[in-house]
């Protein structure tokens, strides 16, 4: 019998000592994506079927460019933190580390590819003018 109350294990950040920031980041990105998701669906739906010249002009415009950039950046950050929860649930040891590293690299790579494409489209329009 040790004289420690159950409160000792529960108070503060709990036995894991972390996770509050992770949960809060998921909440913030989730609320942002509630707004961005319908706007992104409309943006992509309007672009499907356009020929290449018009597609480049379309995503060079402010609204489609900003919605697409925001959706992919916030979405992939939400993805990185979301996969982290799944990886922590199902994998241990070296496999867990490898999966976390792969998930973070993949998430940022998707962001970089999307921003590169959008930058080329937006800046391309200025060069043409």
């Amino acid at each position, binding site marked *: *019998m*040790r004289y*420690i*109350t*159950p*409160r*000792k*294990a529960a108070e503060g950040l709990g036995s894991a000592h972390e996770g509050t920031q992770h949960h809060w980041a998921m*909440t913030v990105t*989730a*609320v942002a*994506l*509630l707004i961005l*998701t319908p706007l992104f*669906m409309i943006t*992509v*739906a309007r672009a*499907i*079927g356009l020929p*290449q010249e018009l*597609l*480049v002009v379309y*995503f060079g415009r402010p609204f489609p460019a900003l919605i*697409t950039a925001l959706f*992919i950046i916030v*979405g*992939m950050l939400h*993805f990185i933190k*979301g*996969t982290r929860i*799944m990886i922590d649930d199902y994998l241990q040891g070296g496999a867990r580390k490898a999966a976390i590293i792969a998930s973070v690299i993949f998430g940022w790579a*998707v962001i970089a*590819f*999307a921003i*590169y*494409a*959008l930058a*080329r*489209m937006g800046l*391309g329009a200025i060069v043409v003018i």
Partner: protein
Amino acid sequence: MADVNRGNRPLSPHLQVYRLPLAAITSIMTRITGHALVAGIVLIVWWLVAAVTSPGAFAWADWVLRSWLGFLVLTGSMWALWYHLLAGIRHLFYDAGYGMTIEASHKSSQALIAGSVGLAVLTLIVFFAF
């Protein structure tokens, strides 16, 4: 550790012999749809990068995007996105302490399935009508 009762806790279900309740199915579907959305986003980003690469690269990406496979991936992603969004709203309510009884989670599970399918059908109708 604290002197707490460790012998009388509920055990997690044995998944091979346990029929998942609707709330458990809709809960795991949130994780599955979230991760499956990778397919849709990769397809769209590939399409965007191809558009600034070369006419040949774009022709290939655009052909895949508008093929039956692309339609399947995009339509599936669109439904998964609606599902994940509605499930996310439910999580925000859970976090605030609402809807966590068995009856409420059963009702919200039904609303989740009906709502996501309804929104997906509506999205397809709007897409093909305009």
